[in-house]
């Protein structure tokens, strides 16, 4: 499963994309992905909040994840 990273999320991980491999227990939902990120990179727990986008739409915690989805971490936005 590939996960795109932007803004401070990219800085925390040090890359613009991560691959979650089978041995990592691939997250099955948005909620599981969030928990995974915080466990793996504790600095995600320090953010004001962060969202997950599935196929370039905001996704609620209960949305299931498929390995073919385009998945992205959306840290607090600050456009404008």
């Amino acid at each position: 499963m590939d996960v795109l990273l932007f803004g401070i999320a990219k800085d925390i991980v040090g890359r613009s994309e991560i691959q979650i491999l089978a041995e990592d227990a691939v997250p099955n939902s948005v909620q599981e992905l969030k928990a995974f990120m915080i466990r793996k990179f504790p600095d995600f727990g320090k953010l004001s909040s962060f969202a997950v986008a599935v196929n370039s739409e905001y996704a609620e915690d209960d949305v299931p994840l498929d390995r073919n989805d385009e998945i992205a971490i959306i840290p607090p936005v600050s456009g404008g």
Partner: protein
Amino acid sequence: MQKKIIEIVEKIDTSQVFTELSDAQSGGICVFVGTVREFTQGEEVVSLEFETYQKMALKEMDKIASDAIQKWNLNKVIIRHAVGLKKVAEPVVAVGASSAHRDACFEACRYLIDTLKETVPIWKKEMFENKTIWVSAHP
């Protein structure tokens, strides 16, 4: 003629925005342009850098424009955001609407910028003399 102009660009050209929103059915056009301010909380900003998840940002911008058109019966809407490095006084965002009467375009214009700031996946890094900060990232 397209009703919506939704764009992410390297550089914002403010000179055409009223022409782009101009319309025979409109009596008013309201436009907001956000620019880089020299000082933020008393500290001197050297530059800003904007990054986006472009595919999703364009989708979100398009939703905002469509919602506004429906809510205020607008004739035309623009949402245009810049990415990359921006210096003091440079424009970073331009949003605007044209409508028959001025109430609608004022309210819509405010909605466009407020909602953009809440939902569109664009991130701003402020660069000061000795540090850089991702705006809003931390509580």
